[in-house]
């Protein structure tokens, strides 16, 4: 299947919102993390991240990580691109406690505060994605 970071960003956010509205904290939290990752990767591609079209993933394995590990990579691409100056992340530590393996955890370890924090971080990334749309960098 063809990779589409932008659409993946949108659909994970939309589904995360559905779960959030139904207080399904555990899976909402998981989807916000994936939405954030896809949003950042769509921007990293704009800022020059090499992409291996045949494999449908970033060419550098260091870029094939999840949100807790991708923010420093985002910062490298952003700071190396003339368009990147207006795309700084307001807080780069929001997802430090998010891990893709949390999908195997018990639902009781997820609470509203944790999800609110990750939802806020994803919203900030959504703001940058929307900005890139306005500027015509993303479709």
């Amino acid at each position, binding site marked *: 299947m063809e990779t589409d970071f932008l659409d993946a960003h949108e659909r994970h956010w939309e589904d995360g919102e559905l779960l959030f509205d139904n207080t399904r904290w555990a899976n909402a939290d998981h989807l916000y993390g994936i939405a954030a990752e896809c949003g950042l990767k769509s921007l990293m591609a704009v800022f020059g991240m090499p992409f291996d079209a045949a494999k449908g993933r970033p060419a550098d394995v260091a870029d094939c990580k999840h949100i807790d590990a991708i923010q420093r990579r985002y910062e490298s691409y952003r700071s190396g691109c003339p368009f990147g100056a207006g795309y700084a992340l307001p807080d780069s530590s929001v997802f430090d406690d998010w891990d893709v393996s949390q999908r195997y955890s018990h639902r009781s370890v997820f609470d509203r505060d944790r999800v609110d924090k990750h939802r806020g971080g994803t919203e900030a990334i959504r703001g940058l994605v929307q900005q890139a749309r306005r500027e015509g960098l993303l*479709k």
Partner: protein
Amino acid sequence: MTAFDETLPIIAEILKRHKADLSDMDWLLVNRDLKGKIRLIAPVEVSESKLAPTLEEIAKELESRLGDRAYPAEYAILYDENREDACKGASLFPLEGFDNIEVADRLPVSGNWLSFAREDSGAPLVVFFSVKGGVGRSTAIAASALSLAQKGKKVLVLDMDLASPGLSSALLPENRRPEYGIVDWLIEDLVGNGNFILDRMYAKSDIIRDEEVFVVPAHGREPGEYVSKLGRAWMPVVRDDGATESWPQRLRRMVDELKKALDPEIVLIDSRSGIDDLASACVTDLGARLILLFAFDDEQTWTGCQILFRHWRHASVARKIRERLQLVAAMMPETDTLERLEEMREAGYELFAAEMYDAIPPGEMIEERWNFEESDEFAPHSPWLIRRHQGFTSLKTLRGRLSKIEESTVAHVFGPLIQGLGELIEERDSDG
């Protein structure tokens, strides 16, 4: 194919057909992005209202009429929570014929010629600008700085022609040049070190003893890796609160810091010439009190001025700048001077009347509007005369000669300019 200049009239034509429906919207933006492609940005609540089908229909028409200048209809509408977010980073101007629709224009450069900073209430800042180079701007700055200093005024001169620096050589000998210049400040500021070099980026001219002309060059004594530095000077910075400060805003902050440090009575800025990013920053972003348009009576000059004036008029910002403009007849030959000056006044009037002055509706007097008679010698279209003079033709050799040239010669060549700048300082003194 639809060319760039054809897009807005086509969009206006399409939107006019839907005007009745669109009048219910609080706001709508015609977003022209970095590539010049068009999308609409609408309030998010519209996406679920009865107006949504209208916008979708418009999106299809845009796609069909604008081709590659539009997005496929499915991507052609963006929805935003509020207008403020939607406008971020764009220059706005009204779409002709609509009260609630604006064009949000996004440029990959900071120089949009539209972001007029408020005038500074401190020492007046005067920008010496010209559409074409070689009109004697730098010489005029050097001569007026020295002349004002002779009258006891404290003058700060900045060489903002960063791509073609040279003004400082007219005012400072090699051994007096400061360690750093404007480009160094812009680079150091990127990493928060701007203030550490501030007191090492200006020097006092030695042409006139005991008088105070402070000069800030484009680069320091040693230009260093000037090309590498200049290429980075245009970077914006993201402040701790997340707000982005563009390089023209940084430049404004640098000028403010220099004014604080030196407390001059007037600031003279040698701008880059032409419709250029740096010239835009000098003319619009630094809070200038007076913008001197150095001009030759030729087509290149008038066409360039018309392009700028029309840009300001179309963006509805002409009122913000027109009172700061003054035409200068540069390097006017000694023969038939007055006839030539008269011809230039006529050409200047034609331009200002068409693009800058208010129209006078029937029954109203000219005094009630911002308008001037062609013959009004105090009007901005009436050029201040600078005469051509052999002694002032070369900046390179100017420094040695400036101190030897009679004050009366300087007054003869640059009289109206020096008088105008002197009056500006007096106005500021009397204002408080």
